[in-house]
């Protein structure tokens, strides 16, 4: 737990530091009268990230000196079920964006879930992977008039 806490705080400090660097020109109140109210655009984000960075530095320090209890992950199985959820989701979004469009990628995603995680018979896998996308297709493309991303075959006449 300890090293995760420190690493998390460190990563967040880096993000805050980048934001502070980017807005450093507005860090100090402008006394020349050029900025409205004496503050430039960078003042507020600079000090917001400075506040976060100071708090995180203390969090990281305290994480090293106080006892840390509890495990981060609930065993190997927990990590596996997390990855089983996360990896296909990333694949879904990339495939949907680049090649397959929402409906085909979504159907594959539903099928994968039903088969690999739910261990359903193939017939139920097919039902879930066809029925849900078809309902979504008609509700969004026809009823709500929301056009979701289409596959690379859309230009060749495929409707989705």
């Amino acid at each position, binding site marked *: 737990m300890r090293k*995760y*806490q420190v690493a*998390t705080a460190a990563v*967040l400090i880096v*993000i*805050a530091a980048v*934001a502070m660097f*980017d*807005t450093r020109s507005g860090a100090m*109140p402008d*006394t020349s009268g050029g*900025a*409205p*109210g*004496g*503050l*430039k*655009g960078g003042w*507020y*984000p600079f000090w*917001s*990230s*400075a*506040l*976060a*960075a100071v*708090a*995180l530095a203390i*969090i990281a320090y*305290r994480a090293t000196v106080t006892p840390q209890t509890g495990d981060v992950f*609930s065993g190997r199985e*927990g*990590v596996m*079920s*997390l990855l*089983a*959820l*996360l990896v296909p*989701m*990333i694949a*879904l*979004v990339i495939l*949907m*964006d680049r090649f397959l469009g*929402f409906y085909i990628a979504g159907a594959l*995603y*539903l099928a994968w*879930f*039903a088969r690999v*995680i*739910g261990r*359903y018979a193939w017939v139920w896998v097919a039902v*879930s992977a066809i029925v*849900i996308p078809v309902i*979504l297709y008609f509700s*969004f493309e026809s009823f709500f008039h*929301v*056009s*979701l*991303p289409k596959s690379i075959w859309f230009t060749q006449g495929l409707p989705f």
Partner: protein
Amino acid sequence: MEALGELARGFAVALDPFVMAMLTVGVLAGLIIGILPGLGGTSGVAILLPLSVFVAVTSKTAAIAMLAGIYWGAVFGGVVTSILFNIPGEPWSVALLFDGFPMAKRLGKPGLALTLAFTSSLFGAIVSSILFTFFALPLAELALRFGPAELFAVFMMAFATLVGLESGSPLKSIAMIGFGLLLAAVGFDSLTGEPRLTFGQIGLLSGIGFIPVTIGLFGLGEILASAEEAGVKYEQVAAKLGLQDLFDSIGELRRKAWMLVANTLIGFWIGVLPGTGATPASFLSYGIARQYAPDKEKANFGKGEPAGIFAPQASANAASVGSLLPMITLGVPGSPTAAVIMAGLFVWGLTPGPLLFTEQRDFVWGLIASIYIGNFMAFAICLLATPLLASIMRAPYSIITPFIILASIIGAYSVNNAMKDVFIVLIFGVIGYWLRKMKYPLAPFVVAIVLGDSTERELRKALIGSGGDPRVLIGINEFGFSPFAAILSAVAIALFLLPLVQYLLRRRSRGSAAATAGEPAG
């Protein structure tokens, strides 16, 4: 009695068929979300936020009635899972596990446990709604007299509450507030027009949208966090509830009426406090119910004591209703869920705050009327259809989860037809998961994202008004003295320092204890 006239007008607005239809959709969705473990009310509101954008095109009142309806539905729905399955459907139903499930299983009275929770929930909601109705106008009128310095102090008080009353780590709350404010600042500076934190990316000029961030942090983040616990076996008690249970519940509540009323008022107050909603209210009320129980009943707690069910539930629902009061009158969300609802108001083009009471009277009073109707609706559905609702728990994880994820993706994409927003959902989903793991509170984060722009605007407006003199923030201005700004900022500073004072006191008492034991104090 102006409020009663306005309320009647609100009922006329809310009883419009479209508003009623959307309220029903919201309450039903909320009930389902409330019953499903691993998907909370805040997440439910976040996931359905995009749908509300489409509803708002027709009627903004219908859109807010729907979003708020999800909240009411989820407060009622969480009861079913806690009492019948011994797992919390919602974070605010955790307190119901202590006595709800024991009453259902050990004492064999699931019907009584459920009706007690439903009836007290309705009582809490209605009393809270009445307080809401009568406090709304005076608060809005007070807020209308606030200038930038006072409003800035109110926002500071909201952040200070999140820090001072945070039970875990106040430092983590501060860090989350900092990042929330930072995220809100990305894009054009609304005052000077200069781009901030865009790193040359044109896509970032318009800022990072509320909708994908909240869907990611709450919707996806929560699904990922609960994935590790998925597949846990749970016990189940069959739901049976009859009219007799309802009479028994009402009898029980009348016998302990003072406890019910006290906890409803406590819940309302916790809800009104910025950032704290139903979850802390229910825990606090459970503790109070146990502490102030007659001695002979104290031993019953944890074994199915009725007060252990109705006190937290009345308080939770009173808090959920109360949390919308500061949102609508001051523009400060009273709970994380209220913060997400408030993000919706911004997206529909409304500015939450006292001006709504003059410029959008139908909207405001329609919302207030819909709170009464929505809670009665949730109560009626729960009484009539609990066995049906409980069967939602049988819906397979491997069908529901991918469906919710697809729905989140559609929602994020459809608002701007942009894949960018889908990637933001994914990124913030992972961030939300990890922050939960590391015990960083998400409530300050989302409140800061939603309040970030307004806080900065009021701060700079105050400074422009004073010619850059920061003393305006503590109430000293060229016209003399503003007691509101002074009092509010004093309270904010005190709340900010509260954790530090507590820490130092703890250290001192520990130090002196160690010293008396003859050990070096450190």
